[in-house]
Structures are given as C-alpha cells and as structure tokens.
C-alpha cells in the first residue's frame, strides 16, 4: 500500500474516531433541555462528559492537522469551499466549549440558562452541519480545473446533503442518549434509556435511507460491506436499547457511527473530493497528497505516538467510569 493510501486511511480513522467520541458529546448537549429537567439533572448530564469532551475534540484538531499535512490540496479546497458551514461549526464549538467551563461559575439562573442554550445550539449545529459536510464530500461539489471551489452556498444544500445532516444529528442524539443511559443513575438513566429506544428506531430508518442513497451515488465493494455492517450495528443498537442492554447499545451506536463514516470514505476512494462540474477539478488521493518524505515522517510520528495517545485517553475513560446521579452533584 502506498503512503497516500495509508494517510487516506488514517484521516478516515481520525474522522471516524472524532464522530464516535464527540458524537455522544453532541448528543448529550442536544439532550440537555430534554433529559435535564432541573439544574441538578442538567449538571448530571454535563458532568458525564466533563472530563473527556476536550480530549474528544482534539480528534478533530488532529484530523484537520493531518489533512493539512498529508493532503494540502484537499484541506485547502475543502476548508475554503465549505466556508460558511465550517464558520458556523467553529462559532458553535466556541460557545459550547466556553459554556461547559463557565456555566457553573455563577449560581444565578439567568446565567446558567444562557449557557444551557449555548450548549444545546453549540451541539445541535455541528451535529447537523458535519452531516452536510460529509455528504457533500461524497457527492462531490463544483470544482474548477485548478481545484478551487466553483459553487455557491446553495450547492451545499442539496436534499441528499440535508438528509446527511439529519442522519448525523439523529445518530449523535441516539448515541448520546445511549451514553447517558450507561453513565447515569436514577431518573435520568430511565428517561435516557426510554428515549434511546425511540431514537434508535428513527435513526435506523434515517441512516438506512442515507446509506442506501449513498451507495447509489458511488460505491466500492468495501463501501457496500461497510454499509451492511452499519445496518447490522443499527439493528443491534435498536434491539439492545429495547431490552435495556446499555453496554451493548453503546457498542451498537458507536459501531453504527463508525461504519457509516467509514462507508463514506470507502465509497469516495480513490477520490477525496469529486468535482460535479469539470472532471479535471476532481481531487484524488494522488493529486492532493504531500510528498513521499513528508508522509514518511508523519507515518513514523503516528506509529510511535498514536498508540500512546489511545492508551492514556482510554485510561481517562477508565478513571471516570463510574455512573453519576443527582446525589453526586455537589452544591
């Protein structure tokens, strides 16, 4: 396997990891006004992800950094072409990140309510917008022969892209509900479990439709296999939420998100951003990649340090493995 292909896989893995991990963070944020009926309950929700959300977001920073380094052409066209969605994602992530840290710094209700809105919108917007971004990535966008984006904002809002947005929002919300059922006690846990069962059904239908349409747009044998895996994972998650097997439900939604993202990347290969207008504009693994030396250096860095990162990040989840309930929330 040549180095650009290795890096295509690594970038795909980084985005997959990001969507699985920050997926449930987004879900928790979206469910904040739904499952948290009072301040203490909302604090239970926020504290399930308190120690880990920032580390989860670094997956995005690493994915974007890897994209910049390994595929400058892809990074440049994608980020300048998808300008407004990315701008909105950035603004959402700003408010959301600050909200986690600042919300509890004052006791007055108006202050807390404002930050609750920031957490909700700051989670919902990226959950929808990332779906729009990845759907457009797969479908392709208008690109000029010099690989510059040649479309407008409306080109990014096709029905397929909007379905992609709805799919990621549904996946992340259900994933978040499943995560909360696994990480909380008492009423919050019950409510999250019930909501996860209902959410899983809607998510399975949405994601199933999205995957089917995706494969009609472009497909490879690997993509078909992964999509089938995603479908199995969705059905597994659906079953597990119905019978309240919280651990298995989480494995199911995590696998469903991972396999859905993997399907998109597999269907895309060896293109990285297809052009819907001038075929010469299409960006591929070959024409968007960095030189062999650069990729080799980065491969070594990844080989040495990625296992270390996975180990200590995994350890963090182990340290904070306990369930949280209203009784655990200090004044």
């Amino acid at each position, binding site marked *: 396997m040549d180095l650009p292909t290795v890096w295509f896989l690594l970038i795909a893995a980084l985005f997959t990891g990001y969507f699985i991990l920050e997926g449930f963070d987004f879900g928790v944020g979206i469910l904040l006004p739904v499952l948290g009926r009072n301040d203490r309950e909302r*604090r239970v929700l*926020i*504290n399930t992800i*308190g*120690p*880990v959300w*920032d*580390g989860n*977001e*670094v997956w*995005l*920073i690493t994915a*974007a*950094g*890897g994209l*910049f*380094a*390994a595929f*400058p*052409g892809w*990074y*440049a066209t*994608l*980020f*300048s072409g998808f*300008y407004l969605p*990315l*701008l909105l994602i*950035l*603004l959402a*992530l*700003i*408010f959301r990140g*600050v909200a*986690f*840290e*600042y919300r*509890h*710094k*004052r006791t007055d209700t108006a202050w807390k309510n404002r930050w609750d809105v920031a957490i909700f919108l700051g989670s919902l917007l990226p959950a929808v917008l990332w779906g729009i971004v990845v759907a457009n990535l797969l479908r392709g966008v208008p690109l000029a022969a010099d690989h*510059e984006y040649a479309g407008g904002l409306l080109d990014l809002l096709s029905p397929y892209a909007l379905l992609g947005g709805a799919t990621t929002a549904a996946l992340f919300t259900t994933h978040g509900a499943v995560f909360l059922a696994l990480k909380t006690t008492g009423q919050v846990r019950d409510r999250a479990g019930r909501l996860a069962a209902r959410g899983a059904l809607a998510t399975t239908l949405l994601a199933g439709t999205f995957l089917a349409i995706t494969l009609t747009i472009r497909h490879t044998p690997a993509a078909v296999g992964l999509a089938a895996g995603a479908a199995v994972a969705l059905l597994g998650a659906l079953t597990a939420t119905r019978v309240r097997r919280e651990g298995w439900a989480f494995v199911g939604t995590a696998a469903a998100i991972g396999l859905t993202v993997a399907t998109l990347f597999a269907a895309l290969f060896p293109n990285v951003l297809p052009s819907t207008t001038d075929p010469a504009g299409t960006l591929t693994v070959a024409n968007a990649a*960095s*030189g062999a*030396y*650069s990729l080799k*250096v980065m491969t070594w860095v*990844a080989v040495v*340090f*990625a296992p270390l*990162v996975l180990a*200590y*990040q995994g350890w*963090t989840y182990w*340290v*904070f493995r306990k369930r949280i*309930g209203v*009784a*655990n*929330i*200090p004044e």
Partner: protein
Amino acid sequence: MDALDVARWQFGVTTVYHFLFVPLTIGLSVLVAVLQTRWHRTGDPRYLRLTKFYGKLFLINFAMGVVTGIVQEFQFGMNWSDYSRFVGDVFGAPLAIEALLAFFLESTFLGLWIFGWDRLPRRVHLATIWAAALGSTLSAYFILAANSWMQNPVGYRINPDTGRAELTDIVAVLTNKVTLVTFPHTLAGCFLVAGALMVSIALWHLRRPADAPAPAATGTDTPDPESTKAGQDRAAFRFAARFGAWVTLAAAVAVVITGDQQGKIMTEVQPMKMAAAEALYTTEAPASFSVLTVGSLDGSRELFAIKIPYLLSILGTGDPNGQVRGINDLQAQYVSQYGPGGYTPIIPVTYWSFRFMIGLGLAAAAIALWVLWAQRRGRTPTSRWLFRAGLVMPVLPLAANCFGWIFTEMGRQPWVVFGEMLTRDGVSRSVSLPEVLTSFTAFTLVYATLAVVEVRLLLRYARAGLPDVEPAPEPDPGTDDENRPLAFAY
C-alpha cells in the same frame, strides 16, 4: 477594501486574541503545578488553597485558549487556501505533530486534573498537571517551528512540477535557528504574564483591609497570627506575591537574553525586519537605537529623537561598530533578487510595536523588582502606588506579547513565507468579500462579547479570594460511598 485586506485583518485580530490566552495557559499551568508540588511536599494547606485559587483562574482562561485555537487551525484552509496548498507539505507537519503530541496530552491530562482530585492517588494527580503543562509547552514548540519556517524557510525544496514547497528535512525544520531562539523567547514571555498576574492578584488581596477579622488588626506591620483565617490568607498571598515576582523577574531576564539572540538571527535571516524595527533607511556602522522618534518615520524628516549610540549595532550584530543594513539598500537588493515591487513593511507599525514590546515588558519587570524590595526580610507592602502599579501589572506583559507578535508578523510583510510567497498570493481565491466579511464580523463580535464575560468572571474569582479547601480523600474502592459528592463538578 478587498477580501485580502479583510482576511489579513481577521488573521491579525484572531491571532492576537488567541495569544491573549496562550501565555497564561502555558505560564500559569507550570506555576500551578509548582504550587501543587509544594503542597504535596510540605502538606501545608496554604499551597493547596493557592493551587485551587490560581488553578480556577487558569481554567477560566484555558477554555478561551482552546476554543480560539481551533479557529487558527481552520483559518489557514478557509481564508488562505493558496497558502495552504503551497506550504501544507512542510507547514502542516508540525501542526499535525502538535495536535498528536501536545494537544492530546494537554487536554486529556487537564481533564484528569480538573475532575480527578478524588479519583486518583495524590501523586498521580500531581503528575497530571505536570503532563498538561508539558503538553502546553510542547504545543508552543511545534507551532513556533511552523511560524519560524515562514520567517526563515529551511529543509524544503520547490517541486518544479507542482510549484509547491516540499519537505526534505524535518530535523532542519524542527531545529531552525529561528525556532531555537523564538521558543525560549516566547516561553519567557508567557512566564512574564503568568508571574505578573500572580503578583497582581496577591497584591490586591494584601491591600484589602476587609480581609482582617477585626479593624484593630489592620495596618499593623507585625506578622499576622497564622491562627486566624485572614492571617492565613495574608501569609499565603505574601508567598504568592513573592513567588510571582521572582518568576516575573527571572522571565524578564530570559526575555532580554533570548530577545538579544533573536535580534542577531533576525539581522542575519531577515535584515529588512531589523531595519524596519529601527526605521533605519540608510545602512549605518555603527548604528544607534532610538528610544523614540517624533516626526514622520518615512526617512524624510525627523523632528526629534532620543538615540542611544551603538545599541542597534550591538543588538543586530553583537559588535558596537557592526554594520546594520538600511531599508533603502535592502529594497534595492530585493528588487534585483525578486523582481519589481515593494519589499518594505509598514514602518510605523514595526517601529512602534518593537518599542512597545520592549518597554512594556521592562515595566513589568520593574514592578516585580519593586514588589520584592517592598517584601524584603518579611515586610508586607504598604505603598499605595505599588498597589496601583500592581493593578496594571499583568496588562503590561500581555500587551508586550501582542506587540511582539504584531512586530514579527508585520515585519515579515509583504511576504507570507519569506522569499517564497507573498501574502497577497496566499489568500483563498474562491472566498468572496461578503463571505470573509461575514466571518471577520462574526469573530470580532463573538470575541469581544466573550472577552467581557471572561474578564468579569476572572475578576469575580480573583476578588473572591482563597477558597476553603479540604484535601480530597484518596480513592478507596473498599469504602467508596456511591452517593458521595464529586470533588469537582461542572
């Protein structure tokens, strides 16, 4: 005004804003780690209280640094796509390494530190803050390696087929001589800010008589009895003021030494930037350094200037009679080298930002010296002027840091990568003026709003004073009560 101008303004505003939070993240994380280490070693609750107090301020600041940092990474691709295409092969590598090596370390271990007081053995918990501090420091190294490559590109070649820069030697990039002096200079600048903040808040509490339990106890210079809470608070803040002042002073010395080394390397690799720092139009040997100039800085007339002879020669070459090349000579040389065009930065910006950087940094050091003098042999500071100076103290090095960045980035203009790519050629061609204007306006408004929120919160917690803290119980699976409140919760 076109998209290029707005993209440049956005980069300037978002970068300077981001760097308001970076120095405290780097500097204060280490200072808090030192405080916690002292608590760990001595068991004196005063250090635990200081750890929690300054730790809280650190976290309020850290959140802003994180969220504004993501903008920086995305901005290259969004507003500067041609730049990104051209440099990604070289410039992207340190950025990706930064994320993998530094940001994961910083954010993961900070999460463990914030929430882990009752979840980790004390020794391990102490290690988490050091790991987070190490992550922050490492991140500075890699991003400065990336920036230094823009100032002095090394370890690359231009691929004749694609016209793009390609990495040929990662070691050369990571040991760029500009990186090797910029990294310690920037770190020292970070500790200058962190030390000054620590002093400032400690002084503010030392001046406040309301801290005393009874009016009779105020104004006395005798050491406070450690039995009262107010007495303990004062003792803790006296330690913090002294510790912070020593840090500030040491950092100032380091800033001066590394800044001097930087001057020599800058004169060598970016002589135009050195000439622009002094508004030196004609080559001189020896060259003098002007403390300030009244009049125009276009070289035509100078109404009044205070000059220190030989200083610019010493700064630039290390030799009092060394030759420092002037703007006019360099401009002529660059025209013959790179073709017709203007290769001179905006001189008033470089001239004044250079002076503000130095002046404000030195002013902070002077206040630190004053604090140490006022606290000599166990004295408690009483001068009202010192307390006033203490209030502005953290703003001085913070502003000095900003002016340093404005100087080094504006001094590189018109290049984005010195000698290789002009800034105007790096901008995204597919991004329209309304788009970039929307983005610039949104970031400016959001950043301004959050600045107000952040500063008010910082002041609120700075005023609140030292928290009463019980050391968290160490984790014990045998006796753990399921309903025990968390040691820390959002």
